[in-house]
């Protein structure tokens, strides 16, 4: 099991190899990256197997007193900073394992898909290099057993996303999006880093387990614990695009679509959720105030994003905002102690969202069109894509027996159990809206009559189809993992849990309610967008002002833009001017100049006339005599 470090290392190794030798290798060395991630996937299964039959007796393994799950920890020394030793350490527990599985699998799928999608791109090799670096960073992130390593991986994820979003940097919009993504997340990272250092200051080590011990054992004061948790959560908000840091994610679609799939589903954004889950002991220490913050932020994010998704007209934007809202749901669930539910939804959503993006990608690939207004009835020309997309959509929309339904249901259960009624109401509204925009995206794009100019459109090639198909299967059936099956497997709750293991429980009224809402909204969508029986115009008319606000994404971008232009840049300009005009020209130059002027003035005392010279001597003499005299008497 201690060979788990191989999983990221494969990918780390692949990246430089492709960069250096890529041009000389067949297929620009893309296969290297696929081999690496594939190897990672294989190793994952090996590790998974050995974890399943591992016990606290196994070397490096023990039962964590926080999660009560089996945990294995392996460390190698990295370097010494004076008296502080920093380590490479990997920690393997159920959370890590499922994340490993998700990342390796989705990344593998996306890369295979990319073979087709990115075919013929001039920077094909570079693409795959960064891709595997991305995956490697994410894998390290989930494997890290100390905050320092986690932060390292965290930053690497950020920079890779920068590179991938800005992949087509010839497009200014792509450049801007990449910069935005990096800087916005970086702001969150400041919080994360401060939080980490704060923990270190208290604990004297970066090891997570020690920090958890300190938090739960009360060695760390409540104030500090809360502060640390909030700061960590800042980082998580940045990465997981929670309000108000969500602005970067929708723009991130400037990158190639597979990249969006990876970012939205498996790597970048889930990092935040993962961090909160990982640091759950700190969040839940004392009376868990931080979790309330998490819940609120998650709820707000989910609501806001889903409303925007309802009115967005760009397919990828719809998906992006749906991601945000689902991340909000995960946070909400975590904030409601729904540890298992959050992770479960993370997985389910990951598969579904990856599928959806790949689908959207294949649509875009063949139509070069993203505005759903101009699309329609694509089912006829690209049936496979339409089919898998629909599966993803209804799964995410929460139609029963598909995985999305189960995971969302678990979240609702958690919320209704631990938080007051307001939360559950808004959560249900969010669920409804997510069903609605999913239905909207799906029906408008693929159903109804084929819009003109789309006749020549062809379906996805094999290299793109296969990954979509595989993902579709998972998106459909993954949910069944949540049941207690006959045999010794009783529900995912018995595998991933915080505190006590719990089996599968189903709250009937919630389940039926959400099911009804989901089905209803899909029927509504069918009527509205396919049959056009219902016209939304009067609705739009009544809600016009609200709609305007929503369509403008609540003016977040505008505000930020204003701050950057009017505040930051102006301020830095002022400082720069100050440096040149004040510090340099006044504080520095003027003494020097005054020296020179003084010299030029003083030189006039050499008048060139002997008698003034002698006069000076005499005055000096008198001065000497008198001065001396005064001194001596």
């Amino acid at each position, binding site marked *: 099991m201690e060979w788990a470090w191989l999983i990221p290392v494969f990918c780390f190794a692949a990246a430089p190899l492709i960069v250096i030798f890529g041009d000389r290798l067949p297929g620009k060395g893309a296969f290297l990256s696929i081999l690496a991630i594939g190897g990672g996937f294989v190793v994952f299964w090996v590790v998974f197997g050995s974890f399943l039959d591992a016990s606290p007796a196994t070397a490096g393994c023990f039962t964590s007193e926080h999660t009560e799950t089996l945990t294995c920890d392996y460390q190698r*020394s*990295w*370097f*010494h*900073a*004076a*008296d*502080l030793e920093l380590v490479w350490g990997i920690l393997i527990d159920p959370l890590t394992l499922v994340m490993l599985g998700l990342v390796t699998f989705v990344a593998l799928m996306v890369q295979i898909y990319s073979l087709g999608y990115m075919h013929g791109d001039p920077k094909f090799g570079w693409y795959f290099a960064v891709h595997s670096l991305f995956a490697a960073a994410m894998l390290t992130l989930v494997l890290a057993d100390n905050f*320092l390593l986690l*932060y*390292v*991986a965290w*930053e*690497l994820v950020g*920079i890779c996303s*920068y590179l991938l979003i*800005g992949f087509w*940097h*010839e497009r*200014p919009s792509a*450049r*801007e999006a*990449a*910069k935005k993504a*990096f*800087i916005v997340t*970086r*702001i969150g*990272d*400041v919080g994360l*880093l*401060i939080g980490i*250092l*704060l923990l*270190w*200051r208290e604990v004297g080590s970066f090891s997570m387990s020690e920090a958890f011990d300190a938090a739960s054992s009360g060695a760390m004061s409540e104030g500090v614990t809360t502060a640390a948790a909030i700061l960590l959560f800042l980082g998580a908000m940045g990465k997981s695009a929670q309000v108000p840091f969500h602005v970067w994610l929708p723009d991130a679609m400037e990158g190639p679509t597979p990249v969006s799939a990876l970012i939205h589903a498996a790597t970048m954004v889930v990092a935040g959720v993962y961090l909160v889950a990982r640091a759950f002991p700190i969040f839940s220490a004392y009376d868990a105030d931080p979790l309330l913050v998490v819940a609120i932020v998650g709820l707000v994010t989910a609501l806001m994003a889903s409303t925007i998704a309802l009115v967005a007209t760009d397919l990828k934007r719809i998906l992006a905002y749906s991601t945000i809202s689902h991340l909000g749901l995960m946070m909400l669930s975590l904030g409601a102690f729904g540890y298992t539910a959050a992770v479960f939804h993370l997985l389910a959503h990951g598969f579904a969202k990856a599928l959806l993006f790949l689908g959207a990608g294949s649509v875009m690939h063949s139509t070069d069109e993203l505005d759903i207004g101009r699309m329609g009835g694509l089912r006829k020309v690209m049936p496979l894509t339409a089919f898998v997309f629909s599966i993803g959509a209804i799964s995410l929309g929460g139609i029963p027996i598909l995985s999305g339904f189960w995971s969302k249901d678990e979240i609702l259960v958690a919320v209704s159990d631990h938080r007051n009624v307001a939360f559950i109401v808004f959560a249900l509204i969010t669920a409804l809206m997510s069903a609605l925009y999913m239905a909207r995206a799906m029906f408008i794009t693929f159903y109804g009559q084929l819009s003109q100019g789309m006749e020549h459109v062809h379906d996805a090639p094999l290299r793109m189809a296969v990954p979509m198909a595989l993902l579709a299967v998972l998106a459909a059936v993954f949910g069944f993992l949540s049941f207690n099956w006959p045999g010794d497997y009783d529900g995912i709750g018995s595998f991933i849990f915080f505190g006590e293991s719990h089996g599968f429980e189903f709250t009937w009224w919630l389940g039926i309610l959400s099911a009804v809402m989901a089905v209803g909204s899909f029927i509504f969508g069918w009527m509205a967008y396919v049959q056009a029986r219902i016209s939304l115009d009067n609705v739009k008319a009544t809600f016009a002002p609200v709609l305007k606000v929503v369509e403008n994404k609540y003016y977040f971008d505008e505000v930020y833009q204003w701050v950057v232009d009017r505040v*930051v*840049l102006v*301020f*830095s*300009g002022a*400082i*720069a001017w100050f*440096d*040149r005009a004040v*510090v*340099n020209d006044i*504080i*520095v130059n003027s003494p*020097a100049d005054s020296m020179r002027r003084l010299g030029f003035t003083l030189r006039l005392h050499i008048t060139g006339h002997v008698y003034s010279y002698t006069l000076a001597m005499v005055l000096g003499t008198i001065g000497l005599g008198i001065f001396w005299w005064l001194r001596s008497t």
Partner: protein
Amino acid sequence: MSNFDEAALFILILVPLLGAVLIMFMPKERPKDIWYLSIFVAGVSLVLSLIIFARYDYDQGGFQFLRTFDWIDAPLNIDLSLGIDGISAPLILLNGIVLFGGVLVSQTILHRNRDFFVLLFALGAGVFGVFAARDLFFLFFFYELAVLPMYLLIGVWGSSTDFGTFLRTKEYGAMKLMLFLIAGSVLVWIAILAVYVEASDAGVPDFSLTTLGSLSESGQFSDTFQNWVFPLFMIGFGVLAGLWPFHTWSPDGHVAAPTAVSMLHAGVLMKLGAYGIIRVGLTLLPEGADNWMPVLITLGTVNVLYGAVSAMSQTDLKYVIGYSSVSHMGYVIMGIATLDRIGMGGAVLQMFSHGIMTALMFLLVGAIYHQSHTRDINVLNGLSSRMRVTSFFFAIAGLASLGLPGLSGFVAEFMVFTGTFRTYLPLAILAVIGAALTAVYILRLLARTFLGESDQQWEHLTDGSVIEKGVGGSFVMILIFVGVWPEPLMRVINVGVYVLPGL
């Protein structure tokens, strides 16, 4: 200790000087041969510094390669005594590397390149000397020797630039730099004399750092004395370290200086100041240091933020980098001012990594400027499509400077933060924010200059020469290596930091 170890440092200092003398007698009509010879000399010093660094026994620790030559005996007691510890060893290595790189990329300098290399080697020898000196006089001696050539190096081979609103001539830059640094050394000089007087009042008139160190350990230096002398050292050396508000010489000097000089200046010269604060200020006047640290660390924080913010709105590549070095030297100063082992170690590591990093940046800017004849961010664009390797290296350097993990900058800054968190929490938070600001201007720079489509006017640009690629590549390698596995440096630095008093 073998004979080599006894002579090593002396040879190390002597090699560049002798090289300079040798070059002086080369016929000036054959610049190529002069360049080859310089490469040879620099190579020898590089190898020497590598050997010395490798042979430094970090298990034993303390000062090694000790050697003392009598210079002036009583009543002044000045000896040329050399020796390095864990703090100076990496810096010596740094100087060897940067000097070699600088000489290599000075291939493009053909105008009076004999004088150029002579002065360059004088500078290099001075830097080696400062890091190796164990005697106040000689530390100061080499310190000034390192400053001395800058005037001509910038004045003769530099470039004047008109920024529309204001003008920066190379004469101005050179004179300003020279006067600033000498002004700083004026304070240092006074302070040294004060220390000497105090010591001779204590009955031990001596300049040897070892003697003085033991003197201060035995509490011979009164607190009041330390309190008024330390600021002299602090500001005097701080000027060379780009301490705010005495930093303005640095960006202007960069803008005026030729590539190799910028590399050495930002890469090594600015480190002398920080090193001086550690070696002299901290070692001799721990009490004064203790009392003045709040001021110093505040100034350091100002450096970080101020440098970063003013770098944001610069339009000249070299100005951006110049201000970024001001900001990064701020981390060094903070690390020193923490008086915390981790912070100090971070400071030393930051010196090394920033040395390599900023040298790399200036190298690449030089490569660009050499072809495009402009450094204006608003004019340059889309270079990555014309100069792929150069842009890639620049990106790496930029990422290193914004503290991307996996590159050396991160480890150093992280340690500085750590140390600061243990001592000055609020300032530490500011510093972390400063690190985020770095990202802003670096990305702005990358986006404006390197990414995107390039104009027609940059059609002619080609990628850097083999030499530039080679040097740049090796610098990148160092950045990555230190970032991934800092232990080889850290274990040396640690033993150096451990013995510092007052930590």
